[in-house]
């Protein structure tokens, strides 16, 4: 096994359909018009020497190494910037070219350290390769003249070094930062000999750099290089796998030395990321081998006891006997399980199978409950499928991009880079969000309209947009008549046309001027392809499901569905939220979103699994907490989820967890939930197992094992062991066999197999006989449900309202460098950018409370109080405060309430009425929790033998 090598064609592929034939070194080559000579040559197997060119960036023509001769033309043009022409005769290797190239290389090397043997990039350096390719044997100029060899290194970034002494000023890093990432953090400073790559503010860490790694990836020398390569050395083999952070699902090459990861390099053939990455996937993988990993199973009788390390056999036997005891004592429905959106499809499928087939109930749920469950309900109701409509590539053809309740540059950075590229090309942008997210104004991107609505008024806003579309005659009637239920449309149109839905009527409650709402609606309806992208700012409301249906209504009314460049697109928070939902993690449905009361589906599973199944839905996660407090729910198996930190109203969650007689937590770390557990089963990271993840565009991608599980078992093996100990044997020797069963049992996955994934790289479901290579765009010729369904979406204000006691509205979200509860990212150098949660507060609200930047403040709601430091910013409007939820010390969910979405119980994280006051220390809850936390995480020292 060696390194996975990817061909660099030097310049991007041309998109023209017209083909052109030319000859290169006497051989005929046919390529699309607009292709560079360099790429055409590479297509025919001729690698023209190059340094400043790489196929992820537009041609630049600065290094002068890729020169060619063209019959009938003067000079030696650069092959990267010269397009092919019919009949052109190109020579890539002539005495003149050899001399020129060698001369160019000589100049480069005359100002380059000759330390190849001790250079970290030795063996992976294009400059070194090119010196060899042009036959450079000596440097006539000597090394005594003025040079850059003593230029100081910038080692400020925690993940990569910048050594300007090795820089050839090819601008690949600068161009990658601009073209690929769109951050514009780098520039070439100075002229001539003084030219140098420079980050803003003088060093990388202080600059606008977001550490996406695009510059490191683009660098042809050791100038920008991963610290891990410097420390470990060059990798010797690599394995293509899928990132375990957000729902973009980037493909990476895990580059290894033995079982040690040297670096994660974004995979160019990855269809979700096309070779790009963000700081988390590219660099923040060190948690996988962090010293905090628990690698031995542990049990204890009481949560106040110290943990006792035991063998896997003892831990599994104890788990099984406890669950069986509880069921015998309290009934079949007294136990349940929670699947993880961070685990693979196969693992998720197994946990729900364990619950349904072995526990004998449907008490299974997943963390999608607290994020995108409204997406499933809303899109299934309106379109017929519980998933987004587009692939990510579709954004390249969007003319108007509407971002609602999402912060892509922080939450889904690789897709955001793609979106920004399209916006720089001229697509228009509407942002509907209480906060001024970065996308509102970022280099070369500015939203046409930012509608900073008050938290909790999404539905009023969407109805007002619809009002404008209907009353101003902007409905695409042809589309609606052909594709949607016309009677339902008419009812809906009559509803939204009512005066109480007009922009003027909702301006007061949303806080957004009516004229801006009208202009935004007109732009979406008339600006060409309109694409909606949304996040948890839509779903995590008491009307989350209603808002999802509002967006579907808007897309159908304007005909923005069923082709490239349009659609309704949920940006999924975690790597496998889509997959965990697809796999039947919800308590009311089997895999493929089929209700448990559906006799045909249930009978099929009963036959497949050889056991009778329950036809009534099970408990959702918040119902489990309620039932635990109530005393009817006593045992829970949690795979890769941390409800105590992530779920709302922490005090209630803690009460529920504390009431359980057997809580089994399977995780990488002793997370907050594990502090209330009786059994801890060590989990395996994405690097330690095989499987698949399904991203936000329904793309199923392989996760490949690159190292053995640190604790000896992959997560799916642990679930298998529990099932067996409870008397139900599942016979799988590899996750591919689990996928084969999923394909057998799930119509939308019928054509999925590891063999196909290995052949195609990835596929998007539905993948079956009708779409063997998958389905990038949904609802092209008709909606899955038949006619598109318009749903009347009356605005019902949340009951969570401000008052004299709680005058501000708190909304929460996440930040680029951290990920959800932070269990992974807090155990990496990403803490450099975000070491604590801060409360964003508007200067007006801060001043009236005497709060200054960095002051400790107490945030109090009717549910509880916590203290954290303040950040004063006008990014939030007066009356609104915002924070992240990455740190257990903050535990902001102590403050969030039990209000939830009417249809799915997705918590209303985004609206909590609070008061903010200066504080002189942690809240009472924080102090008590810290004390409990220390007591409940003790591990007994094994007795000496």
């Amino acid at each position, binding site marked *: 096994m060696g390194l996975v090598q990817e061909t660099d064609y030097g310049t991007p592929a041309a998109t023209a359909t017209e083909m052109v034939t030319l000859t290169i070194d006497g051989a005929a080559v046919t390529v699309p018009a607009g292709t560079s000579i360099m790429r055409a040559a590479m297509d025919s197997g001729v690698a023209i020497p190059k340094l400043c060119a790489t196929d992820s960036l537009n041609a630049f023509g600065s290094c002068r190494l890729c020169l060619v001769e063209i019959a009938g033309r003067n000079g030696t043009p650069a092959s990267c910037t010269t397009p092919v022409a019919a009949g052109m005769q190109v020579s890539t290797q002539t005495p003149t070219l050899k001399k020129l190239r060698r001369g160019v290389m000589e100049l480069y090397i005359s100002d380059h350290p000759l330390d190849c043997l001790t250079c970290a990039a030795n063996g992976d350096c294009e400059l070194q390769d090119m010196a060899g390719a042009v036959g450079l044997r000596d440097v006539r100029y000597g090394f005594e003249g003025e040079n850059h060899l003593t230029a100081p290194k910038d080692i400020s970034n925690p993940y990569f070094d910048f050594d300007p002494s090795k820089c050839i000023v090819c601008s690949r890093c600068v161009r990658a930062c601009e073209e690929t990432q769109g951050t514009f953090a780098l520039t070439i400073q100075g002229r001539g000999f003084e030219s140098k790559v420079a980050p803003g503010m003088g060093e990388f860490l202080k600059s606008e750099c977001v550490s996406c790694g695009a510059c490191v990836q683009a660098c042809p020398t050791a100038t920008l290089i991963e610290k891990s390569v410097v420390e470990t050395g060059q990798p010797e083999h690599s394995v293509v796998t899928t990132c375990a952070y957000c729902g973009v699902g980037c493909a990476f090459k895990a580059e290894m030395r033995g079982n040690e990861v040297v670096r994660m390099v974004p995979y160019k053939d990855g269809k979700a990321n096309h070779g790009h990455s963000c700081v988390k996937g590219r660099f923040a993988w060190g948690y996988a081998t962090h010293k905090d990993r628990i690698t031995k199973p542990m049990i204890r009788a009481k949560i106040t006891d110290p943990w006792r390390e035991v063998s896997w056999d003892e831990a599994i036997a104890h788990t099984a006997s406890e669950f069986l005891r509880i069921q015998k004592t309290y009934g079949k*429905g007294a136990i349940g399980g929670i699947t993880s959106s961070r685990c693979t499809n196969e693992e998720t499928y197994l946990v729900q199978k364990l619950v349904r087939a072995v526990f004998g109930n*449907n*008490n299974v749920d997943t963390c999608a409950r607290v994020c995108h469950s409204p997406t499933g309900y809303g899109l299934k109701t309106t379109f017929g499928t519980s998933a987004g409509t587009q692939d990510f590539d579709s954004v390249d053809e969007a003319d108007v991009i509407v971002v609602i309740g999402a912060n892509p540059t922080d939450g889904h950075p690789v897709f955001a880079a793609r979106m920004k590229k399209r916006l720089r090309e001229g697509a228009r942008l509407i942002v509907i969000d209480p906060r001024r997210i970065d996308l509102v104004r970022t280099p070369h991107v500015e939203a046409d309209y930012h509608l900073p609505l008050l938290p909790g008024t999404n539905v009023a806003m969407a109805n007002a947009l619809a009002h404008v579309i209907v009353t101003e005659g902007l409905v695409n009637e042809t589309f609606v008549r052909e594709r949607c239920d016309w009677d339902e449309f008419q009812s809906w149109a009559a*509803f939204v046309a009512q005066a109480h839905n007009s922009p003027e009527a909702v301006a007061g409650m949303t806080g957004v001027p009516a004229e801006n709402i009208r202009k935004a609606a007109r732009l979406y309806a008339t600006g060409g392809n309109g694409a909606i992208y949304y996040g948890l700012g839509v779903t995590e409301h*008491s*009307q989350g*499901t*209603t808002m999802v249906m509002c967006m579907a209504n808007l897309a159908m009314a304007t005909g923005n569905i069923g082709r490239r460049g349009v659609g309704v697109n949920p940006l999924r928070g975690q790597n496998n939220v889509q997959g965990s939902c697809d796999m039947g993690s919800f*308590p*009311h449905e089997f895999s493929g979103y089929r*209700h448990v*009361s559906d006799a045909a589906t249930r009978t099929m599973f009963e036959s497949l699994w050889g056991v009778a199944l329950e036809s*009534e*839905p*099970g*408990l*959702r996660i918040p*119902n489990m907490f*309620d*039932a635990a*407090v*109530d005393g*009817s729910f006593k045992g829970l198996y949690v795979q890769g989820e941390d409800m105590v930190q992530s779920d709302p109203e922490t005090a209630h969650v803690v009460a529920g967890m504390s009431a359980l007689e057997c809580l089994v937590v399977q995780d990488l770390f002793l997370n907050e939930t594990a502090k209330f557990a009786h059994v801890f089963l060590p989990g395996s990271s994405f690097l330690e197992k095989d499987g698949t993840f399904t991203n936000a565009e329904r793309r199923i991608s392989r996760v490949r094992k690159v190292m053995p599980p640190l604790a000896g078992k992959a997560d799916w093996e642990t679930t298998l062991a529990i099932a067996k100990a409870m008397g139900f044997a599942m016979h799988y020797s590899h996750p591919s066999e689990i996928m084969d069963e999923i394909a057998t049992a799930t119509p939308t996955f019928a054509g999925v197999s590891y063999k196909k994934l290995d052949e195609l790289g990835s596929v998007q479901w539905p993948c079956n006989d009708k779409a063997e290579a998958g389905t990038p765009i949904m609802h092209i010729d008709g909606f899955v449900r038949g006619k598109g369904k318009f749903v*009347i979406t*009356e605005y*019902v204000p949340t009951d969570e309202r401000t008052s004299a006691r709680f005058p501000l509205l708190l909304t929460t979200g996440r930040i680029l460098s951290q990920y959800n509860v932070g269990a992974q990212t807090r155990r990496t150098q990403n803490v450099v950018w975000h070491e604590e949660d801060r409360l964003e507060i508007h200067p007006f609200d801060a001043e009236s409370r005497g709060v200054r930047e960095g002051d400790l403040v107490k945030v109090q709601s009717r549910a509880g109080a916590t203290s954290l430091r303040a950040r004063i910013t006008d990014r939030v409007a007066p009356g609104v405060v915002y924070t992240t939820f990455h740190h257990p010390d903050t535990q902001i969910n102590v403050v969030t309430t*039990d209000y*939830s979405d*009417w*249809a*799915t*119980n997705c918590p209303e994280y985004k609206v909590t009425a609070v008061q903010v006051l200066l504080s002189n220390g942690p809240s009472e809850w924080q102090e008590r929790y810290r004390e409990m936390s220390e007591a409940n995480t003790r591990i007994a020292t094994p007795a000496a033998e």
Partner: protein
Amino acid sequence: MDDKKLVYMANQIGKAFAYQDEAASVASIAGHIRSFWEPRMKKAILAYEQAGGTGLDSRVLAAVRSLRPAQ
């Protein structure tokens, strides 16, 4: 199960279907509860309704009644 919470949840569902005429909304509310509530939650709301159903909106009350098993 906490009756107060169940009543609140049921009324929320009722409000979501308030745009429908009475018969349709009662059926939709009942259908939603039937499809998504776990048996002990259904049992609790039925018992609550039997005990008077204070606080349940009128259509929600009718929907819950319609969930009673046939005698």
